[in-house]
């Protein structure tokens, strides 16, 4: 499973539990539990295979390998990997869904500016 190796990523490990609003201006790899909201305007969020997120997510790019319950808005792209379980609406310019991913929700592709 892909785990970013670069130090440019903030990393939340699988034993970490956060309740509340999570925001920042750097990319985030999240393998723990978050309940609340996640705001990473202009940056990418990766929910790792152990990640369990109950939150509305707003980021530039969102990659899901774990579980996301909440609406997901991406300025650019959403990637649902094969282990992803997403329950919520997705809005993005582009979306990629691997075979085996589970999605319950609406998908809106913002065609404005999409290529």
């Amino acid at each position: 499973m892909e785990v970013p190796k670069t130090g440019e990523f903030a990393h939340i490990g699988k034993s970490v539990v956060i309740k509340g609003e999570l925001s920042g201006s750097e990319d985030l790899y999240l393998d723990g539990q978050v309940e609340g909201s996640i705001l990473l305007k202009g940056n990418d969020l990766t929910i790792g295979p152990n990640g369990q997120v109950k939150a509305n997510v707003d980021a530039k790019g969102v990659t899901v390998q774990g579980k996301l319950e909440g609406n997901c808005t991406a300025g650019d792209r959403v990637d649902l990997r094969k282990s992803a379980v997403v329950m919520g609406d997705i809005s993005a310019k582009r979306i990629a869904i691997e075979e085996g991913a589970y999605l319950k929700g609406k998908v809106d592709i913002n065609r404005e500016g999409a290529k």
Partner: protein
Amino acid sequence: MKLFRGSSSTPEPTEKAAAPKLQRRSSGLAEVARSWSSDDPLCILDLGATSAGNIRFFAERGHRIYSEDLLSASTEPDLVTKDEQGNTVLDSKKFLEENLVYPAAHFDVVLAWNLPDYLDESLVKPVVGRLWSVLKPGGMLLAFFHTKDAGPDSPCYRYHITGTDLVDMQPVLPQREVRRGPTGAVHRSIGAGFRLQRVFNNRHVENLFRDFASIKFFLSRDNIREVLVVR
């Protein structure tokens, strides 16, 4: 109605390699496709296993696509309850509190694929009733039903739309958390795929959709009847 409740001696698949796709021509889909070829954006509900291809297909055409895998949702163990006779059934009220929760008259098209044939008996009528209410008047629902020649081991497929009258069919091999079928007599092993629950004859299909304004059958050579109903 022919029910399949017996055990199967078919060995379970031992690996979850990507299942091959079969192509099928669909007259029912061709009829539905006339509506989505218009410029007006439609609201479409896909009830099959999540298909990236279907989402892309409709999104590229400017339609709003909702995906909800009802068959997987029906394997939730919390749904198991007893009816008045003490039989193990699924709690349809609870199921509909958690699934298919949309405003009335919201969708132009519902793609049910082969859902009614594989869904637990206790959920079929309540789900069809809810689908009637979330469809717009004049909205269409497409479903595929096996004919009596189909056996209980007929594979449950994931349907990927590849053209206005073409679908790729891929056997559903659940890859996420494997759960035992909730009522025991139903899906003996979800890991081995979903089992055909029954075969509806034409009269049963007509009864199932009796609240709808019209019903049209399309017969094909592969033991499948396509049914297109209009609210």
